[in-house]
């Protein structure tokens, strides 16, 4: 069944279009693809261009702060701290090993019709869905 109470096609589409605009602005000006896992990785482990990468990440916090001045948004998380730690570790390790995340593979890569990114995106979305299914079945939070 579809969860119609939480379904937000309009705001999600607008948000997506804005993300697409940001990716193109970043590519057309700096020449780089806005893959957040790559920017995060470079900001912490690579001294080349570190300041620009840190500024992008700061922007990711400043943007939502501006939005929160005029509107509300929810942050709900139900998972226990051990799961947060394991999850964060796997997201960091996995995106570094697989050279990308939801933005780098899922948006930039698919927009360029990159076969690697299409395969990576299908894989991480399907495996995340299986993970959620398994957690729900065994009742772990």
């Amino acid at each position: 069944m579809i969860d119609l109470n939480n379904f937000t096609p309009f705001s999600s589409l607008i948000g997506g279009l804005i993300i697409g605009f940001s990716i193109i602005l970043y590519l057309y000006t700096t020449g780089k693809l806005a893959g957040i896992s790559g920017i995060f990785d470079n900001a912490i482990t690579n001294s080349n261009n570190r300041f620009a990468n840190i500024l992008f990440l700061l922007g990711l916090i400043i943007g939502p702060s501006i939005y929160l001045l005029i509107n509300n948004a929810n942050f709900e998380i139900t998972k226990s701290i051990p799961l947060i730690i394991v999850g964060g570790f796997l997201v960091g390790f996995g995106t570094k090993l697989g050279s990308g995340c939801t933005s780098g593979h899922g948006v930039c890569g698919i927009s360029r019709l990159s076969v690697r990114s299409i395969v990576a995106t299908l894989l991480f979305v399907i495996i995340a869905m299986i993970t959620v299914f398994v957690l729900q079945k065994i009742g772990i939070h």
Partner: protein
Amino acid sequence: MTQNFFSLLSGIIFGIGLIISGMTNPEKVIGFLSITDNWDPSLMFVMGGAIIFSAPFMFLFRNKKTSLLGHELQIPSRKDLDKNLIIGSSLFGIGWGLVGLCPGPAISSLVFLSPVSLIFIFSMSVGVVLQKTIIK
């Protein structure tokens, strides 16, 4: 200088897109990943919207060597499906499903001042650094 300015500006716009889209709420992401129980398809519209906007501009730029500001384009050209891509993306999928946060939304969620975001980002950094150490 312009590199710094446009990095900051792009980050700000990206972050606004993330919070409007609902991606910064882990439970909403879990709702999208939960296809068998109360599925919330909203996030398909996020990825769809972003791709619809960027794809034509990616196509227009496909043969360019430099950006409009003259910076060399840094676009990956690999086409092979190697073991690292498959294993890495799978591990990322498990982590994403466990918590409902991927790298961008995790950083943007710092705006909610929840210690959980900090713990997640710290663990993510450990994962990145450890992976880099193993490869060397």
